[in-house]
């Protein structure tokens, strides 16, 4: 296999692993907080429904966390297996957050084990809830530390290269690089948002499938509320991310926005197609939009692609990834806002079939937005693996067996993906919530139905 092929297959394998892992990772970061909130509400209101909600989410969560852990281990090792030259450099400069992540993960794993096996073991339920705090913290900090490494790839800091040698290394400066604040905040908040909307989709789906139990209604209301809050957070942070890009990675923003000429009063281009001579057609154009996004000033100058050599411009299809991610985010914020307004004003249609189907659709859409976002982040950095320092083509392995490994890992992800869905479905189908509420009612001797 030639080196070009090794680079190509390494990219495909990394992309496959990340695309698969990120589904489980996002759920893994977001759901513990949802469980915590549900259990807390349950204890405060003394409402068995919320407690059971937390308990059932926790059961499903274990399955997704298992797949998240093993695919996370896979990507962790694949970084060294597929990008050895990059990891040699990264090891010298950005190993610290990677190392911290293992501790966060360790912490989460330990307390998750305890939490799962101590239901009803404590007299005081608040003690049990306390065990969940390290789980949620560990999960969130895993995301924080790993995203810091990704931020470093976009805005490498904390070292100098003199005659090919790394000097003046400062691990902390590398961690707190300019990309870090917006990136970390964006990843964490969208994980919460996605988890909330995925759980909302499940509740809406149960309601559509014949169960009219108030349990699902409570679940839907709670998750839509949380989803709304986090989607507003995501929108605000998204705005800051635009400003970060304009200042530190202008080529990424320009490529995402098909902004070819450096101009002031730049317009924001939505969708559209690109002709062969880079003319934008059929697009919705918002005057001053890009200038506002980039600098909060409609007259600001925004750097265009004309300022960059052609071989350092990322592929222009990232425009669609960027747009779709933003559209889905906006749509989910709107949908949850309408739902909450409807609850408040007692609009009937929010309990109608079509509206519930929209909420169900929101689950997969949110996951898709996460995928679009990561593809945008990664493809938008091309051709660099470490911006301005190392190109992807220089970082890859020279091994000749990457194509075979790609096939094997694809099969693995298929087995894991199908397996996790089958197991989750069977788990909840065998033990429907009505039955479980009956059981708990019998056990506790008071009305929990």
């Amino acid at each position, binding site marked *: 296999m030639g080196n070009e092929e090794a680079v190509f297959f390494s990219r495909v394998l990394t992309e496959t692993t990340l695309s698969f892992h990120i589904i489980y990772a996002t759920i893994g970061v977001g759901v513990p907080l949802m469980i915590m909130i549900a259990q807390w509400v349950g204890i405060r209101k003394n409402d068995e429904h919320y407690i059971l909600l937390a308990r059932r989410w926790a059961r499903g969560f274990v399955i997704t966390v298992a797949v998240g852990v093993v695919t996370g*281990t896979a990507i962790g090792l694949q970084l060294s297996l597929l990008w050895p030259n990059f990891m040699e450099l990264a090891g010298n400069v950005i190993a610290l957050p990677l190392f911290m992540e*293992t501790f966060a993960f360790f912490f989460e794993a330990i307390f998750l084990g305890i939490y799962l096996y101590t239901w009803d073991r404590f007299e005081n339920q608040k003690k049990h809830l306390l065990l969940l705090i390290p789980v949620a913290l560990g999960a969130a900090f895993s995301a924080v530390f790993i995203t810091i490494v990704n931020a470093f790839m976009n805005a490498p800091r904390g070292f100098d290269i003199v005659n090919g040698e790394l000097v003046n290394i400062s691990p902390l400066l590398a961690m707190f690089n300019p990309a870090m604040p917006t990136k970390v905040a964006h990843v964490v908040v969208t994980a919460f948002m996605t988890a909330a909307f995925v759980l909302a989709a499940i509740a809406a789906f149960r309601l559509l499938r014949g169960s009219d139990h108030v349990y699902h209604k409570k679940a839907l209301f709670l998750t839509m509320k949380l989803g709304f809050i986090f989607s507003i957070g995501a929108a605000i942070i998204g705005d800051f991310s635009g400003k970060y890009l304009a200042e530190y990675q202008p080529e990424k923003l320009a490529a995402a926005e098909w902004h070819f000429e450096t101009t002031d009063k730049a317009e924001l281009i939505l969708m559209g197609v690109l002709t062969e001579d880079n003319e934008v057609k059929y697009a919705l154009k918002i005057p001053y939009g890009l200038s506002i996004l980039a600098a909060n000033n409609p007259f600001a100058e925004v750097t265009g692609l004309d300022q960059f050599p052609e071989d350092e411009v990322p592929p222009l299809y990232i425009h669609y990834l960027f747009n779709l991610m933003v559209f889905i985010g906006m749509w989910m914020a709107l949908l949850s806002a309408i739902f909450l307004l409807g609850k408040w004003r007692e609009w009937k249609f929010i309990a109608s079939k079509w509206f519930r189907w929209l909420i169900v659709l929101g689950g997969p859409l949110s996951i898709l937005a996460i995928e679009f976002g990561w593809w945008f982040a990664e493809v938008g950095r091309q051709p660099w693996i470490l911006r301005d320092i190392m190109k992807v083509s220089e970082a890859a392995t020279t091994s000749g067996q990457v194509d075979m490994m790609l096939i094997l890992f694809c099969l693995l992800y298929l087995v894991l993906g199908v397996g996790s869905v089958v197991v*989750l479905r069977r788990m909840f189908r065998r033990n429907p919530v009505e039955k479980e509420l009956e059981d708990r009612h019998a056990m506790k001797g008071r009305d929990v139905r």
Partner: protein
Amino acid sequence: MNLEILGITVLWTFLFGYIMVGAIDFGAGFFNAYSLITGKQRVLTKVIQRYLSPVWEITNVFLVFFFVGIIGFFPKTAFYYGTTLLVPVSFGLILLAIRGSYYAFETYGSRGHKGYSFMYGLAGLLIPASLSIVLTISEGGFIELVDGNPVLDYWKLFTSPLTWSIVVLSISATLYISAVFLTWYANKARDLEAASLLRRYALTWSFPTMIAAGGIIYELKKYQPEHYSNIQNFWPMFLISFLLFVGTVFLLYTKRQYGWAFTLLAGQFAFAFYGYGASHYPYLLYPYLTIYDSFTNPAMAISLVVVFILGLCLLIPSLILVMRLFLFDKDYVRGKGDYHA
């Protein structure tokens, strides 16, 4: 002690932790699957699942810690090992993924699903075999530099008796460690039937383990004389290890003090493992990589050590909590309360 030695000692300790908890874990999964074939599942499954359930995820972390740590402390390993280990480690990863997820599928999703149990039982047993190849490769001679890039010679690797003795050791040691631990655990759970069956497994796998270990030293003499002569410098450690082995087998054979039997076993493996590690010094990969020429910069090394100490302050109390709740809590071990979500 310099930072290089401190770094490798920390990593070696985590690898040792992984080998011990991993062996217990993987062996238990295998015995569970095996009991399904032989119809002894009634005896074994309960006690095995009682132990495994709350800790499976923790096992994995030891491994992650090791490989993240080695890239942090010794970044050059990424270049040499990263390039050459693509195939063996990918196989290990696939097995690990199947093992971890199907374990969870069986335990939390469909209890008692035979297909899942076989899948994770078998995958678990093959993980030590596939990962142990890294140790073989570290002995050198299997990697050549072609145009400045390291290339692994598969043919030589898979026809070398050294490779296969290490594979055999990894499998038999896994079953041995696991059986001894579970004998103790079952005995603690007052499950005498399971304890007696597991004791028999432990005795069965004790001697193959010792023979395979001896075989490796013999192969090294032919294959890597430099390492072999270093091993001789550490003979007291290997002697102590052997005496501890004798002690374990004696206690098991006379059906006494299973707790001590496991403690001695842990000592046996610790002495052998650290003895082996010390005799490997200073090489990470013969003859290309030593802990000195691959070490990271001082700024990174110091910050890693600081984070490590802070991390331990967080982890050690949590690990103690886990042990108190599940390993040393009589009611839990005996299965008196089931508090699973």
